[in-house]
């Protein structure tokens, strides 16, 4: 008995002695995310990666609340008359985290590296940027193959890396010739950055911890988080426990309605609804019978019950109006919006050449197996179509298989439901990736529109350097698309986060968020009151 008591006593003393050792940050910001996260600017492009990159790296320009580019590393810029040469003047007082000065050759290196590797956001610049020149340490010139109006907006995705530091960690031989592996291996778990947060700890499958860069060139609010942790979990019970114990400030966007309700009942926790730069689409194959008939497509568009989708299946969302989300610069509010009207649906169906043979022409809808809520939409669609006599087969398909099947016209299904987001804040991002002919063999366009008139109109718009004129052309394109009815425009993407509203001042929760993926949770815009 005495031995037992001694052992217990020992454990108590041990616990008391070491339980207080953990040193918490003064103003921590801890968030949960769907993993993996890539911190190499030439590799990462998903939600968590863009958040990590935006916190640790700087870009030439940053978006304001409306998505318009504002100076950041670049103090000023101009574009040549032919729209093919963009010249940027850089700040001279910017230093990387290791103390090296940031110069124009780093910018050139960052673009060259991204284009060579071809991953992440390279698709934004690949085939557009011809060359990058750095005539002096504070001037950088991008030479484009053709004029590209939204170029400035795409630069939100050019994260500037430290050339000297990366090249010092290159492994040779590698897949990129004399550049070896271009520092890819090293940048998996290290940074060569200049941003407001420094990498403190990165456990690849577990968590990413960033500490505030106290030597940052820009003045930051004294209340910004001094430590930013990204936790790689979305497990509801884990998130709820962390939040209730005060060990989590912002929950991820993947929590279910039930989980969000439970989280919002915790004292001090509020619910933020943040509009995202994307939309949930039901992409209709326009070259496959019976959905190749425009009246058939319009009948489906009129028969769909959008209200049920936005009120019950994805509560709080807003029915989309055309192919562009409302928050996206270049969205046109005058575009036609389909509403449920069974009479109009039947009238359109009667005009269809498949009207007399509906039994023989079932419609197949594929939904993504990894997003269970999509099944509800597919089943609702089946039920709605049954009301006008269209037979629907609902098929659950893994994401990888959707990517494969949409690569060819024959294997693409009649309809596939997909969430898609713009990678730079202009309507052109989606108008191009969703409907231009070159994207017809990708998962982003099950429609197979292959419309040369549309392609020409889009090309003209992209070449227009004046933002206002360009936006007018975007509006015409949106009207053109809606008239073709190649898609059921379901709802604008909205992410919901449970967050500690009692201690956080989070502009995004108030609706003040740039329409750019990954910008909603940048530490520099958030204040922690304790």
């Amino acid at each position, binding site marked *: 008995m005495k031995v037992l008591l001694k052992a217990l006593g020992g454990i108590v003393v*041990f*616990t008391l*002695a*070491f*339980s207080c*050792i*953990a*040193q*918490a940050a003064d103003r921590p910001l801890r968030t949960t995310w769907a993993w*993996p996260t*890539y911190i*190499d600017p030439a*590799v990462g*492009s998903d939600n968590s990666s863009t958040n990590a990159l935006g916190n640790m790296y700087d870009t030439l320009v940053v978006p304001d609340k409306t998505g318009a580019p504002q100076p950041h590393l670049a103090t000023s810029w101009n574009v040549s008359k032919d729209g093919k040469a963009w010249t940027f003047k850089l700040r001279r007082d910017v230093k990387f985290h290791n103390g090296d000065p940031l110069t124009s050759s780093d910018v050139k290196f960052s673009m060259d590296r991204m284009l060579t*590797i*071809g*991953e*992440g956001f*390279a*698709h934004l610049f*690949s*085939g557009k940027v011809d060359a990058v020149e750095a005539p002096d340490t504070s001037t950088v010139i991008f030479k484009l193959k053709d004029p590209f109006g939204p170029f400035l907006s795409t630069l939100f995705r050019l994260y500037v890396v430290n050339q000297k530091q990366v090249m010092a960690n290159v492994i040779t031989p590698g*897949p990129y010739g004399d550049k070896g592996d271009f520092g*890819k*291996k090293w940048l*998996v*778990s290290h940074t060569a950055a200049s941003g407001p947060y420094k990498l403190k*700890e990165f*456990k*690849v*499958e*577990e*968590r990413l*911890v960033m500490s505030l860069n106290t030597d940052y060139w820009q003045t930051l609010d004294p209340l910004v988080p001094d430590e930013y*942790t990204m*936790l*790689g*979990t979305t*497990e509801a*019970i*884990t998130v*709820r*426990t*962390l939040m*209730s*114990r005060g*060990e989590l400030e912002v929950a991820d966007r993947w929590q279910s309605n039930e989980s969000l309700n439970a989280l919002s009942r915790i004292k001090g926790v509020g619910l933020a609804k943040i509009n995202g730069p994307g939309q949930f689409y039901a992409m209709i194959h326009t070259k496959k019978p019976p959905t190749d008939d425009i009246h058939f497509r319009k009948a489906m568009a009129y028969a769909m019950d959008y209200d049920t989708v936005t009120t019950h299946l994805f509560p709080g969302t807003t029915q989309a109006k055309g192919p562009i989300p409302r928050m996206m610069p270049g969205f046109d509010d005058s575009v036609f919006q389909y509403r449920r009207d069974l009479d109009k649906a039947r009238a359109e169906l009667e005009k269809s050449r498949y009207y007399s043979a509906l039994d023989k022409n079932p419609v197949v809808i594929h939904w993504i197996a990894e997003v269970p809520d999509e099944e509800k939409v597919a089943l609702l669609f089946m039920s709605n179509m049954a009301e006008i006599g269209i037979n629907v087969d609902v098929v659950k398909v*893994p994401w*990888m*298989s959707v*990517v*494969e099947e949409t690569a060819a016209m024959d294997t693409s299904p009649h309809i596939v439901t997909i969430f898609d987001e713009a*990678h730079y804040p202009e309507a052109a991002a989606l108008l191009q*990736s969703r409907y231009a002919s070159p994207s017809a063999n*990708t*998962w*982003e366009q099950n429609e197979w529109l292959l419309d040369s008139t549309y392609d020409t109109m889009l090309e003209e718009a992209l070449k227009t350097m004046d933002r206002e004129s360009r936006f007018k052309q975007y509006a015409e394109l949106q009207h053109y698309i809606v008239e073709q009815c190649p898609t059921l425009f379901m709802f604008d993407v909205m992410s919901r986060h449970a967050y500690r509203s009692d201690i956080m001042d989070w502009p995004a929760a108030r609706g003040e968020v740039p329409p750019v993926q990954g910008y909603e949770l940048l530490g520099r815009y958030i204040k922690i009151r304790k």
Partner: protein
Amino acid sequence: MKFTVLQAGRVLFWIHRKTKEGPAEQPCSARNSMRLVRFLAKRLMHAAFVLIGLSILIFLIARVMPGNPARMAMGPRAPQWAIEKLEKQMYLDRPLPIQYFYWFKSAISGDFGDSLVTKRSVSEDIIEYFPASLELAIYAAVFMGIAGVVLGTVSGWFANTWIDNLVRVIAYIGIVTPSFVFAIFFVLIFSYWLELFPTIGRLSSGIDGPPVITGMVTLDALITGNPAAFWDGLKHIFLPAVSLAMGPMAQEARITRSSLADNAGKDFIAAERACGIPERTIMFKYLLKPSLIPTISIYGLDFASLMGNAFLIELIFNWPGLSRYGMNAILQKDLNAVIAAIMVFGVVFVIVNIAIDLAVERLDPRIRFRTGG
């Protein structure tokens, strides 16, 4: 220095030859040692064939899964040239036998290729994640072994009483309830309500982790004399380990109990009772030892299964282990990682099986004599 499969094969062959060339007459202990070496050599050779077969099977399964791994790795918007370049790099444009040949050639030198998801070498990933899973499995196994045998023994000791019935009910609940349900309950009770244990990870963020020696946080903390990290690591591993161990623990208890009950009715126990040997001595000296043989056989297999089955536990507790890594690799079609992770689990199974055979042989003289010892 890398110890390759080829080198291992040479060592095995040498042992095999040596055992055949052994002297005609040897003392008993030397004979035992030679028998052991022969036994080990034979088992290791079998194991090598099993692992090669496993690698072929897994390689083929991984290759025929739907979806292009190169596209998956490069991201959905990657240009076609970049995807084709990666396909070429991974030999995906070559026939399957050629692909397997290249893979095997690299694998025997310890290079499993790069992970398409983590973007690191798979070997590096395994070195990081395997110790985490092993540490979790060891703690779970300790709990499973102690609690399972104790409960089984108590149940067998008090057979057909209310205590026995209670333990049986507990055991049934343990067997039929998936480990992730226990994990959720434990998190709710001990982390959410009582706030006794941390919820995620292997260490708290404010704690300086010990330098990596074995990769097992608590062991490394002990070796380097870091009591704070040890205690913190222990608190972090407690709930996942217990959650993981609940099912197998119940199984051990059931098997121990039924084995005890079987042996209790045998003649040798009746003879011992007739000789007036005290019940306690009969129980712990003569009954428990033979009754543990089936428990140990199952225990070994359960231990190996713990690592492979820990996926949901590792997910809930955000535990950076190999099981979660392997499952993510399957979901993301990360070919190299899938094969490597399954091969590691295969090796663990093989090693544990050999260890069980040795342990059972030590415990049961009948098996020892049958194998010529």
